[in-house]
């Protein structure tokens, strides 16, 4: 609460990952789209993260106001705060996850999964939920639950490492890692995750806000969403420049870049959009719940989506 009070009205603290799926904040901020719309009196403080749950922890600690995260952490944050800390403001990207098979492992379809070691990023994230749901839809169970498929939850960079060593047979993994596995390690893309979804689309990155902040700063939200939309348009019009800006950003913040072909292909596998594909979020929550990720007491997503009208009226009452 200390940090909260210190927040000057003119500082917006926004969290995102140095990852191609987060192209909107990266490109929008690098090109100054957000700054231009807010004017000189507002500073935007960038907070770089590499894990969704950590973003949520930090948001609970009131150290950030807005954040770009996957649906998993967004839903968890909403439910764990008893429906009052997190609100989904908009979509940011859809698609962008694939099932990659190691060149030496004999996997050609789901029929070959038995006895194999299959990796997904951390428990409860989008790919993990999708993988486990896919298994159960195909009548398979993870080894840890008495089944035949060994599911490993490991961070993306470690998936790469283990893929190098041939210690895993396949991975359900987001971009740009999926493309890196394909291009650098000869991984085989068995399928794109969007192929499994209605209309071939599902939300993979969302813009969320800290409810308290959103309610208190309706104008900020409006301006942010406008800039957000403008950035989407710009990116979709300028894929080349997007790649250049992205790599510049990587160089400046992490001192490293990805190869052009990786960025291009990864970007091509994603759709940068404001569409939050709400149905996919409900489906996602349902699947997570059936996996036991959402607690024992049942759940409801009522109020998770930003409702501009109620928000304005709440803001007015303040």
């Amino acid at each position, binding site marked *: 609460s200390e940090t909260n009070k210190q927040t000057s009205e003119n500082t917006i603290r926004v969290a995102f990952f140095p990852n191609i799926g987060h192209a909107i904040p990266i490109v929008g901020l690098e090109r100054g789209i957000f700054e231009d719309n807010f004017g000189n009196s507002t500073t935007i403080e960038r907070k770089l993260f590499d894990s969704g*749950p950590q973003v*949520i*922890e930090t948001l*609970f*600690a009131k150290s950030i106001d807005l954040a770009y995260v996957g649906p998993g*952490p967004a839903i*968890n*944050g909403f439910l*764990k*705060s*008893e429906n009052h*800390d997190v609100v989904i403001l908009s979509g940011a990207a859809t698609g962008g996850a694939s099932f990659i098979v190691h060149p030496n492992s004999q996997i050609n379809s789901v029929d070959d999964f038995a006895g194999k070691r299959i990796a997904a990023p*951390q*428990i*409860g*994230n989008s790919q993990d939920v999708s993988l486990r749901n896919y298994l159960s839809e195909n009548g398979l169970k993870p080894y*840890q639950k008495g089944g035949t498929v060994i599911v*490993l*939850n*490991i*961070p993306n*960079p*470690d998936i790469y*490492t*283990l893929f190098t*060593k041939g*210690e*895993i047979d396949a991975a359900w993994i987001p971009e740009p890692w999926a493309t890196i596995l394909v291009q650098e390690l000869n991984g085989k893309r068995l399928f794109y995750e969007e192929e499994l979804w209605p209309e071939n689309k599902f939300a993979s990155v969302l813009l969320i806000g800290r409810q308290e902040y959103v309610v208190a700063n309706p104008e900020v939200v409006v301006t942010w969403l406008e800039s957000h939309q403008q950035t989407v348009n710009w990116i979709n019009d300028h894929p080349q420049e997007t790649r250049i800006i992205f790599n510049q950003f990587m160089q400046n913040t992490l001192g490293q870049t990805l190869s052009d072909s990786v960025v291009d292909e990864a970007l091509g596998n994603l759709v940068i959009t404001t569409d939050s594909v709400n149905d996919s979020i409900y489906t996602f929550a349902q699947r997570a719940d059936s996996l036991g*990720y959402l*607690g*024992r007491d049942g759940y409801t997503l009522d109020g998770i989506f930003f409702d501009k009208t109620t928000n304005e009226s709440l803001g007015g009452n303040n």
Partner: protein
Amino acid sequence: MKKNILAKKIMFYIILVIIWQVISMSDILPSNVFPSPYEVGEVLMYSAADGSLFFGIGTTLMRLVVGLTIAIAIGVVLGIFMARVETVNQTIGSLVLGLQSIPSIAWVPLALLWFGLNDVGIIFVTAIGAVFAVTINTYTGVKNIDPHYVEAARNMGAKGTQLITNVLIPAAFPYMISGFKQGWAFAWRGVIGAEMLFSFLGLGFLLNVGRQLNDVSQVIAIMVVIMIIGMAVDGFIFKKIENKVMSRWGLR
């Protein structure tokens, strides 16, 4: 007398839990930031009921025992060498101090690379986290031996291995015990840390799951389990040895 101590301890923890419950009920902090002991207890109950807790504990302890055994064996030998052979101390000794300052979890990426995602990798991280603490304490212990003991022993014909097993080790034992204790602390931290990052079964994995799902109650529940095991190991193993040594040395 003994009963009295136990009663005091129990009282202390009951009071602690009550204070905790009162603070969390007072609603100063929301429960997603500061859960109540009741919520934490609930999580423990459930994971005990479905067996996952005990499976996790078993896995972790197995890795710990193997890693710590390796660490103690290497650490004691290395420590004695460093204390007795100046050249070893000047060369390997300085390296040990450097390696000691690398946090165990910094080894995780390399462990994954070198050993893969399996028990060996985790045991490596566990052992490497503990080995230097054992080494340094053994070293300090041997260095701090009253020189009269060594002189008397050498004078009575103790040499080489004899000197080590009959004088250096027993004389340095009070220090070495605290070396083992720290070694165990480092190993315990190492194994949990590695499991958090490897995400491959064990208590650290369960803690990480809690974290990934933003479930503070589970995080704290596992921390409590980690603490309880830590206290148990300390109370039932190290305390006993230490008391014996202390009273034999006439230090109490």
